[in-house]
């Protein structure tokens, strides 16, 4: 039986694995990844604000605001997933479990590609229509 088990004496095969303090390098790596996700969400927020506040009206009325809302939504999801991912990775490291697999980078990339394509289409439409 491990020295640092938290299960009461006599209970074998506890439902919850014992928790151990992970190597400090893994803790710091997890922390850095969390902060990177937060900075990404802040970048998306800045893009949303800049689009609405600084970019002139596009070919389709209201398109700026709609794109801004989509970017802000992406920012909220990115920030939330960054926090959730940190929590899940920390728990997995402490319990010796496999790290969680997250599709968040793929979703983020898809969202950004979609926004980019829409924005490019609007800019081209504005140029063509004059």
């Amino acid at each position, binding site marked *: 039986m491990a020295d640092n088990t938290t299960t009461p004496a006599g209970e074998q095969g506890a439902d919850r694995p014992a928790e151990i303090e992970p190597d400090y390098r893994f803790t710091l790596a997890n*922390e850095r990844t969390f902060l990177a996700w937060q900075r990404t969400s802040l970048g998306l927020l800045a893009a949303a*604000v800049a689009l*609405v*506040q600084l970019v002139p009206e596009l070919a389709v009325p209201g398109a700026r605001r709609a794109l801004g809302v989509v970017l*802000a939504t992406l920012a909220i999801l990115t920030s939330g997933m960054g926090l959730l991912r940190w929590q899940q990775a*920390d728990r997995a490291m402490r319990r010796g479990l496999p790290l969680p697999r997250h599709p968040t980078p793929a979703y983020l990339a898809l969202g950004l590609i979609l926004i980019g394509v829409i924005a490019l289409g609007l800019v081209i439409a504005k140029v063509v229509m004059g």
Partner: protein
Amino acid sequence: MAWTRTSFALLANGALLTIKNLHSAAGLWGLMPALLAATAACCTYMIALQRQRTLEQRPIPAQINPRRQVYVVGIAVLVLIAVTAVAQLL
């Protein structure tokens, strides 16, 4: 460094939010996102200094998990995004 970069990102957002609102008639409500960003930036910078002090100790403490700091910054960023979305975009 990562905490410092994050505080700068918050500060940059605050600056961007201030640009248009300085000369508008929105009043305090219009500046709320900028003030929130500035506050979050200051808190994050203080966390950065605290983490630096913790990690400079020799030997490094056995428990260095920044659980409270992570939740503070994570929730602060979420609140900032929500307030900004409501004040600036909707």
